[in-house]
């Protein structure tokens, strides 16, 4: 009798616990549901729908037919796609190292020389401006006929340079424009990383007789590695998705020399209405970014081990 009631008691307890849990769960779901709904409707389901569409021939008007890997096969033989991929890779390869190095330089200046808030405040201003505005102002500064930069170049006795209007210079010019917008912002992230290094570490190195340069390269820089890794991976992911600057400043040209992947996708989907084919390109872009992130994480983990 006694044992039974103990079991009953425990059962009751268990039940009351689970009721408490259920109530907790319900409250938790009230907190989570608005964001979860937004995530499902505008992130998760669209991503899956995009994947499904990439196996169809949908053009907004017909009813989509399943065509297996045809879009991907077509893509592998599509010169326009390969050109876009190549242009985008060139952009990333030019953009990320120059941007990271100049940001690192600026961050060191922020931390060691011009520690005032004013310098940091000025350097972040370009990042506050919309890409569209930045692209517009540089289109004007780089204008071949009346732009200020070419006026300066003329003073030195050279002809005007076709910054945004020649196949050789358009992509590097877009790179320059984006570095102008982002270097201060990225410098601030690296600056925060430098600030988080305890002062004693730096001082110890200097007391041990290391000059400021040696201290920087052998102490500060290695300690900044996680920060730099983060900055580089974000810059790579961001650079692969460049669109606004190209759309305003060069419209992908001249002769598709700035026809980056996002521009190709936009044109294919919203001017050519080839939704199936365009989503296939987005999936390739996605796969590339997953690959890069994966390699980067492997490299970082390898770094932790040594």
């Amino acid at each position: 009798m006694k044992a039974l009631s103990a079991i009953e008691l425990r059962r009751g307890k268990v039940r009351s616990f689970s009721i408490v849990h259920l109530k907790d769960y319900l409250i938790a779901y009230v907190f989570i549901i608005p964001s979860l709904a937004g995530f499902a409707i505008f992130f998760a389901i669209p991503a899956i729908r995009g994947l499904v569409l990439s196996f169809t021939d949908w053009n907004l008007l017909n009813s989509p037919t399943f065509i297996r890997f045809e879009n991907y096969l077509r893509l592998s033989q599509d010169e326009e796609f390969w050109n876009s991929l190549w242009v985008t890779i060139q952009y990333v390869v030019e953009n990320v190292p120059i941007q990271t190095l100049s940001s690192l330089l600026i961050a060191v200046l922020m931390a060691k020389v011009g520690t005032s808030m004013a310098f940091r405040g000025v350097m972040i201003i370009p990042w506050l401006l919309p890409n569209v505005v930045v692209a517009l102002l540089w289109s004007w500064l780089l204008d071949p006929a009346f732009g200020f930069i070419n006026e300066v170049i003329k003073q030195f006795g050279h002809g005007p340079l076709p910054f945004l209007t020649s196949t050789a210079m358009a992509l590097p010019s877009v790179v320059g424009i984006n570095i102008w917008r982002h270097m201060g912002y990225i410098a601030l992230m690296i600056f925060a990383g430098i600030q988080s290094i305890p002062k004693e570490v730096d001082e110890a190195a200097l007391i041990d007789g290391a000059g400021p340069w040696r201290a920087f390269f052998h102490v500060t820089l290695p300690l900044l590695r996680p920060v730099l890794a983060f900055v580089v991976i974000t810059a790579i992911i961001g650079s692969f998705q460049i669109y606004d600057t190209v759309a305003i400043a060069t419209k992908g040209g001249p002769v598709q020399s700035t026809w980056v992947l996002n521009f190709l996708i936009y044109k294919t989907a919203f001017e050519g209405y080839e939704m199936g084919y365009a989503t296939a390109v987005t999936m390739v872009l996605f796969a590339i970014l997953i690959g890069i992130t994966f390699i980067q994480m492997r490299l970082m983990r390898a770094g932790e081990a040594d």
Partner: protein
Amino acid sequence: MTTTYRRPMRLLALFVMLLLVLITLFPIYWVVRTSLLPKSAIFSNPGSLLPSTVTLSNYGRLFGLYDSATAQKMGGVGLEFNFLRYLSHTIFVATIITLTQVLFSAAGAYAFARLHFPLRKQIFGLYLGALMVPGIVMTIPNFILVKDLGWLNSFMGIMAPSLLMSPFTVFFLRQFFISISRELEEAAYIDGAGKFMVFFRIIVPLSTAPLGTISIITFINIWSDYMWPLLVGSSDKVRMLTVALGIFRQQAPATGPDWGGLMAGAALSMLPILLLFMIFGKKVLNSIGFSGFR
């Protein structure tokens, strides 16, 4: 520490800094300078550092102060550009999204940081994963969804994907909520407070700094957004500033773009965000490291 650098090095560093400030600020000055010039002066003396003559006619045109014939004489391209309307659209959209997105993301972030419920880890993992997915992957299906819902060229269409959450906002706030000490909350629970009470009366007041920061970042992002509002909201009645500037630029006649008008438009689009930065700048500057890696 700085004294250990030799004097010439320090001078060189100061020179580089000066150069960087110049590179950063000069283009912005050039926008303002150009916007103040009449059409004739823009092209007759393109290299003069100071505006030779000053006029507000470029701004006047943007505010629709002149009839179209006069405006065209001033260098206009016969395109209607109603700056105040586009500005009000941008402010409206950015304000609504910032308020709702930060509120709902904060609620979600709090659940991930403190509450227990089935699949918590998995759902948060999905949110994190979404940070890596390029935006364009969602753009095409979202466009189709918004079109099917009949929301093209409506504010609802422009705002919908950002209204309820952004994975980054949730992630950013969760990191902060985790770092808050639990003691206050536990004391409140002992006093009989419920979860909502604790969230609104303890967590939110303790988090004004990160909530302010993420609000500013969200506001700036929406303010700057171009591709999505161009896709779903290019009609005049919902057109946002960036979209209007883009269309203004695309419709340049063969004789060349209306640089005076464009630069006046660019200057006016910078102004509100720079004012916002002057007021909240310190907060933004101090929190950028935080938003990156913690």
